[in-house]
């Protein structure tokens, strides 16, 4: 935990209250969203770009735990949903800037069951039968005004296998899905699942180092944006600034149209305004802090009301009690004031406490400083960090899984290439 405080201090982040004494994210975490996996937001990452410290990288992952051999209808994004990231830049936990992806699927040949009808050597290959494109918009969340950043951008294809992408050509094709416009770079498509955890944690905390997320993929949205596009008034705070606008708070969400009409004689129709069905800022909040009775409610609500709605769960989390019960972890009892230390982490630099992934955007910040809870790097072992924080017994608690199965890359989109369906 001292490591955690040091990393915060290096990042110029102060926590509100409470002395901290020590150091599986959101996959299928709530009953309703587990029935609608295409819009299940699994993880959010945010870090200063390792190639340009004037830019922020945001990764929002959806559709959990995907087997590479999932044909013939391989995973994609839903055409009937909005995928969004929201950024609060003044510390009130209300989004100011947003980015919205909407997807459209295409099919070239209807008379085959194949995803691709021959080897694919480029993202524009005529052999790529089933494709998807997207529109990326920037949203002024105060006014609702939108600005199209890019449109008709291809989604990277599924890594079907060695016959479809011979000579290890998949990644070359996938990277053709990287698009840049007005300084913003974007990628959408399947990637190796970057979250590492022993999911046996849900078998009465039976963790023991099993790499349960190895070998699976996820659908990733990756954005690299000039920080001035996100900062309050478009100005990046000076080095060492500690005001509420020295950090931005990020959460991702997915929304569905309010009404779906199923028809017996044709495809369904969707109507109405969009309703948020999934959201995520920090890893594991809805997964292990919010109890079953409120998990779906959490996904419907906004971070600005997190304390009013769920604050009592954060002040007295269940995890340390379970760690004591099952693992004899000797986590101390919740102090009379509650876990105000965790609340402090959720509201750094006097920002309003909320489930937002906050990251310092001051000048001088670098990628090396972007480690959870100051943002979240792909390599961060957030499970260990959060178990350790939750237990708070002065030692470290680990699930025994300390890294991803594949190395992350040093260039955009930073996530590892997805596992092949037929390696």
């Amino acid at each position, binding site marked *: 935990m001292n490591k955690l405080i040091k990393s915060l201090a290096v990042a110029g982040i102060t926590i*509100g*209250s*409470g002395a901290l004494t020590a150091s599986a994210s959101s996959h299928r975490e709530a009953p309703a969203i587990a029935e609608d996996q295409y819009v299940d937001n699994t993880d959010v990452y945010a870090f200063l770009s390792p190639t340009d410290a004037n830019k922020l990288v945001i990764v929002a992952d959806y559709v959990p735990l995907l087997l590479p051999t999932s044909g013939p209808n391989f995973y994609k994004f839903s055409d009937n949903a909005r995928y969004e990231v929201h950024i609060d830049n003044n510390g009130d936990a209300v989004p100011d800037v947003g980015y919205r992806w909407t997807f459209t699927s295409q099919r070239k040949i209807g008379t085959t069951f194949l995803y691709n009808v021959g080897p694919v050597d480029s993202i524009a290959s005529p052999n790529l039968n089933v494709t998807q494109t997207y529109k990326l918009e920037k949203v002024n969340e105060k006014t609702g005004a939108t600005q199209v950043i890019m449109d008709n951008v291809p989604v990277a294809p599924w890594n079907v296998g060695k016959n479809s992408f011979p000579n290890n050509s998949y990644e070359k094709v996938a990277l053709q899905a990287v698009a840049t416009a007005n300084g913003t770079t974007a990628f959408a498509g399947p990637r190796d699942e970057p979250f590492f955890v022993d999911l046996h944690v849900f078998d009465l905390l039976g963790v023991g180092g099993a790499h349960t997320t190895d070998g699976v993929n996820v659908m990733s949205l990756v954005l690299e944006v000039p920080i001035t596009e996100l900062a309050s008034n478009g100005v990046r705070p000076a080095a060492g600034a500690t005001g509420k606008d020295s950090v931005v708070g990020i959460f991702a969400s997915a929304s569905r149209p309010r009404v779906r009409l199923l028809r017996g004689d044709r495809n369904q129709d969707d109507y109405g305004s969009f309703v948020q069905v999934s959201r995520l800022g920090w890893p594991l909040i809805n997964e292990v802090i*919010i*109890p079953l*009775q*409120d998990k*779906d*409610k*959490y996904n*419907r*609500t906004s971070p600005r*009301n997190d*304390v*009013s*709605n*769920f*604050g*009592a*769960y954060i*002040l*007295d989390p*269940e995890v340390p*009690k379970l760690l004591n019960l099952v693992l004899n972890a000797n986590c101390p*009892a*919740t*102090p*009379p*004031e*509650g876990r*105000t230390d965790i*609340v*402090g982490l959720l*509201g750094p630099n*006097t920002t*309003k*406490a909320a489930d937002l992934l906050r990251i310092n955007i001051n000048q001088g910040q670098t990628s090396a400083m972007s480690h959870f809870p100051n943002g979240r790097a792909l390599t961060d072992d957030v499970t260990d960090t959060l178990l350790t924080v939750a237990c708070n017994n002065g030692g470290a608690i680990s699930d025994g899984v300390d890294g991803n199965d594949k190395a992350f890359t040093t260039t955009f989109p930073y996530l590892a290439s997805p596992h092949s369906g037929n390696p």
Partner: protein
Amino acid sequence: MNRLLPLILLVAACGKAEHHAPPTPTPTPTPALEHATQADLAQEIVDADRLGTWREVQHRWQGQSLRWTVTRQRVLCGSADDCNVSAFPIQRPAKQGWMPLLSFAGGQFDALATACGSQDPCEVTVEGTLSELEVSPDLPTKVRLSNVRLVTAPTGHVQTAHI
């Protein structure tokens, strides 16, 4: 006679109905809940989850003047505009997630801050109006007390309270 009695009663009842217009329905006054605690509200919410009595709970509680003893943590109650308090003692453990949002009467946030001083957490008794109560099977419970005044400071010093 035993056979005739019900008939006579029925005729009498009908006769009454003919001579008197049905009374205008008047809303049942909601009994005051000045002595009801947050534990009572929590229990009614738990019951509503089982019985579907969400509207009744809201009707019964919304707008009531209440006196509750709550716990203020400074990190969650940093200003008059942004103050949540714990409705229940920590270490219960938490059975519900909601934390009442307080909107203070003039000067009362400062009174609270002064009364609590450096005590954190700080248990206080407050009075206020339950101005906002959202209870439903679909959204989290949300509780706002408005016109909040400090009644009893942690030292036991009694404040003047008018609601």
